[in-house]
């Protein structure tokens, strides 16, 4: 990649893919083939018809990739849609991200929203926005703060799983920041250490389980400890 150059689109245009050092799209850009670059920036609107591989990506506008995406670092402040698989090692989502297939990487920080049709696999998954995951959400540490709306995942599995409701408008009172505090809706949660608030789940399984206020759980299976808030609803509890 000695003679890789930059691709800067100011205005509108359609370009072939290839190796680039930096791709910057300020107007409306179309990229027809695979691209491999070290910096990918979109301030306007972009569409990549095939795969994108990059070291860092920053999406402030709108980006659509029809194929797979691979990035070491990804920052989305605008909107991004990915038609295939996404490997985003370190991602920060302040806007929205939609992935048709699975999404995986190392650390995920979500303050906006994500919508994934497949599985989501991270080492550290930290969400204070919202998510809708049709598959399994799996991470070593899962931290979810329900600040705005509802979140949904078919299954959640991992080491340490913490779900908390959002912060208060006025500290030490029960007046929530939004009108109605959000709920996490999932079928199963499996982890070693689990703490839940505002969660509706069919089955919760873990070693140490703590059920906080606002929970509706069908079945809790625990190995060492179970403690629950009197305001939580648990239909059945079993110790394994």
């Amino acid at each position: 990649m000695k003679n890789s150059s930059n691709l800067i689109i100011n205005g509108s245009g359609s370009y072939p893919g290839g190796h680039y050092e930096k791709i910057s799209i300020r107007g409306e850009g179309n990229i027809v083939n695979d691209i491999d670059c070290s910096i990918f920036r979109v301030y306007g609107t972009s569409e990549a018809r095939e795969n994108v591989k990059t070291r860092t990506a920053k999406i402030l506008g709108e980006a659509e990739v029809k194929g797979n995406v691979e990035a070491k670092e990804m920052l989305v402040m605008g909107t991004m849609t990915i038609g295939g698989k996404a490997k985003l090692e370190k991602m920060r989502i302040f806007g929205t991200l939609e992935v048709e297939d699975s999404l995986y990487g190392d650390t995920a920080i979500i303050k906006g929203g994500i919508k994934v049709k497949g599985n989501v696999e991270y080492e550290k998954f930290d969400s204070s926005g919202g998510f809708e995951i049709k598959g399994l959400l799996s991470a070593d540490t899962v931290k979810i703060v329900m600040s705005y709306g509802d979140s949904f995942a078919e299954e959640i599995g991992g080491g340490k799983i913490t779900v908390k409701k959002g912060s208060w408008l006025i500290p030490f009172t029960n007046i929530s920041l939004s009108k109605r505090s959000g709920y996490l809706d999932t079928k199963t949660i499996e982890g070693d250490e689990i703490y839940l608030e505002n969660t509706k789940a069919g089955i919760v399984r873990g070693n140490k389980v703590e059920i906080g206020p606002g929970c509706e759980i069908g079945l809790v299976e625990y190995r060492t400890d179970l403690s629950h808030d009197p305001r939580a609803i648990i239909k059945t509890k079993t110790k394994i």
Partner: protein
Amino acid sequence: MSYELRIYPVNKILQFFFTCVTLLCYAVIQKGVMTMSEELISKKDLLELAGISYGQLYRWKRKDLIPEEWFVRKSTFTGQETFFPKEKILERIIKIQTMKENLSLDELADMFSPNIKNMEFEKDELIKRNIVSTTVMNFYMENEKGGQKFNILRMLEIFVLEKLLQSGDINLDEAKTVLEVLKANTQSIQQKSCDILITRKLGVSSCFLLVNAEDIYVEKGTKIVSQVSLMTSMEELKAKLL
């Protein structure tokens, strides 16, 4: 309250009965259609049996140490549950547990990826990659009389011979015995953790293959010339190949 109490067990018994019948029918059908039916184990039982935690299981899944196909979803009366093919998963977990002390999870993932098992190398390629020396290669070809292509098993054999011969622990005659032992026990070598042990007493040497052995004790006057773990040799070999 009493009404509820009375009705509940009946309900459960019925449910259980139906599940049994369904399962039986299913088993009968399966037997007819498929010759090989694998025994399945539920996730909960697996964790208990293997002594691992959810976190570990999910971590290994994330690292692709456990293939996605092994996660079999089935509906039970608590909802959907995940099952695993019992033998395969237990074997894999034991492997991961024994090897993870020396290797990182990423390295393990490479090792379990199927492409390496089907990898074949030419004779010259192995010499070029410094995996075997020309002398050992010639010795091996002379005694084994196989083709030019090396699969993973033959590579392991030659790699072990190379290690033993290069260290100067054994001579060529002993190397022949080692090769014979390795050839005769390919089945166990592939599946279990094995060690090659070479002893010498009063100038007479013998070669053993230890399968799942923890400790060995030899009589006085017998000298353990060399002990090589095939499992670690395999790891080293794979590391060199990748």
